């Protein structure tokens, strides 16, 4: 028998038993839509953690061993912003105490557009461009017993006084690497002396970090570049874990959904048992029956998975606009140090995994009904139904 005709019968069965078709589709549509959204949410959560972690201070790639005139060559495709930071070890001294810090000379305007560090100000404000101001962590300020507006003396490690800066603001990030041993001032306010240049590169959301890295490494072979995955291995692991959890959820959901499809589809085919008996009496072979049922399930899952994917995309599009605020649950979480907003984002994997898994499980769900129908003797079917 022609495949086209079997496909036609399969389509007609689905269309003319539309109530059953609707019930079966509904299960798949909901599952696919929910999983597309969940996958996009997982991507969005990971995005948010990366954005929060890199956007506070470090950027996506940190570079060192770069000279001042080489810095212009860091603007490669995918790099949104390059921040130059000059680092100088100094001793901060107040009337009551001493504190050894790494003083970072920054460009306050650029820092404020690229990073969220200024939002961590607990008192005062971020240093102004061209000023002789210093921005201290809360811990340092406490140890030095300094307030906003106080002066602090910068000394070398041999205790030679270099210059004085005024405290413009005090910050607290909650991340110990940033809250201890660091202080900031405009680069122009740094005392003369040995400075080390480091760069922080901020990439656009979709930029492929591996490609950017390899471009940078071929352009500046003597410099050293470290991606966030290496200087924040904990975050990298957390994100990998997130993806594994997501994969498990997808498989579990579909295992459950496919049991549902299988049962419903079995009831559906058993409801048509007599018709299958008639078709067998007319000379349908096992292969024809199998093809008919496989076509039914395939058509159904293709349709339902498409609708489900579109529905999922729509939901993602809506929530990508408005965002999801989980700030209440993340205020003490270092991976969400800047904001608790999630913006679900569709990647190819997030978009195509749920419908593909739906089709595979849909076909698996057809096996049971197919075997049941094929093994039934038509004489028994026609006698009993």
């Amino acid at each position: 028998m022609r495949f086209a005709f079997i496909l036609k019968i399969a389509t007609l069965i689905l269309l003319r038993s539309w109530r059953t078709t609707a019930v079966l589709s509904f299960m798949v549509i909901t599952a696919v839509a929910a999983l597309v959204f969940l996958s996009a949410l997982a991507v969005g959560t990971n995005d948010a953690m990366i954005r929060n972690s890199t956007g506070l201070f470090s950027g996506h790639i940190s570079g060192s061993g770069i000279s001042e005139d080489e810095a212009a060559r860091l603007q490669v495709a995918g790099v949104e912003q390059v921040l130059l930071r000059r680092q100088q070890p100094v001793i901060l001294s107040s009337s009551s105490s001493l504190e050894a810090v790494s003083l970072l000379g920054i460009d306050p305007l650029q820092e404020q557009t690229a990073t969220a560090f200024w939002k961590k100000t607990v008192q005062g404000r971020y240093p102004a461009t061209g000023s002789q101001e210093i921005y201290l962590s809360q811990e340092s300020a406490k140890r030095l017993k300094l307030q906003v507006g106080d002066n602090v003396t910068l000394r070398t490690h041999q205790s030679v006084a270099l210059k004085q800066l005024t405290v413009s603001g005090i910050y607290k990030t909650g991340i110990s690497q940033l809250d201890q041993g660091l202080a900031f001032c405009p680069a122009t306010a740094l005392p003369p002396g040995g400075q080390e240049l480091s760069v922080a590169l901020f990439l656009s959301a979709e930029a492929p970090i591996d490609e950017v890295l390899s471009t940078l490494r071929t352009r500046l072979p003597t410099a050293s570049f470290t991606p966030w995955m290496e200087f924040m291995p904990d975050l990298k692991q957390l994100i990998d874990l997130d993806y594994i959890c997501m994969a498990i959820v997808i498989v579990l959901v579909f295992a459950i959904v496919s049991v549902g499809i299988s049962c419903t589809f079995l009831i559906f085919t058993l409801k048509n048992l007599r018709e299958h008996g008639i078709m067998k009496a007319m000379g349908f072979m096992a292969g024809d029956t199998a093809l008919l049922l496989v076509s039914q399930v395939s058509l159904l899952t293709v349709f339902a998975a498409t609708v489900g994917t579109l529905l999922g995309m729509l939901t993602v599009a809506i929530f990508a606009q408005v965002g999801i605020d989980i700030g209440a649950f993340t205020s003490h979480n270092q991976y969400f140090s800047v904001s608790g907003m999630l913006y679900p984002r569709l990647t190819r994997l997030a978009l195509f995994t749920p419908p593909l898994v739906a089709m595979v499980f849909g076909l698996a769900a057809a096996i049971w009904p197919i075997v049941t129908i094929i093994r039934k003797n038509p004489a028994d079917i026609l006698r009993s139904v």
Partner: protein
Amino acid sequence: MITISSLSKQFVSGRGHVAALSDISFSVEHGRGVILAGRSGSGKTTLLNCIGTLETPDSGSIICNGTDICGLNARQRALFRRREVSFVFQSGNLLPWLTVAENLQLPLELNAITGADQLYRIEELLDTFGLAGYEKAMPAELSGGEAQRIAFARAIAHTPSILLADEPTASLDSDNGRQLIELMFSLCHTKGMCLLIATHDQELLGMAETVIALKDGKLLPPAPAPIG
């Protein structure tokens, strides 16, 4: 021509071993219509199912057009059903999700009769059965008599050599039943098919050229043939 020799079939059921058919032998020629008479439980359905390869007998042989169909494997049996034999059951013959025309299309597709030939045959069948204009009707919209006529039309669409009708009139009133049986006999005659109709309806017996009577799975001796 169908030649049945020493056919036996037993079932094992809650009642123990039931001899549904024991040592049945007879033959039917092409173009002949036979009525299988007998009370419920006498083995009529089992006999038709054996001839139609839906059931395999325990012993004996059924020679159809020169081959013993009892020796066929599952695939060959399906092909035999597809080409050579058609069934009309008591009711529920039509596939409910297909229109009348699509139902008629089914045996033609199964036998690779497609295109213009297919369309022509469907039209011709509907004309013959007085059901022109019913192409797009769904089975649920037909009366019992119409549905059985369509089932019969579908059964002969691909001109099989054997037609097996198991109580085809049981769900019809007696007028409709008689009309259907008459139509079956006359068409089988013109098309040269072997026709076997199983029925427990005594009224229909007079319509047949040959009546084969079954009782408890055994053949009853034939009634003396009318002289003339």
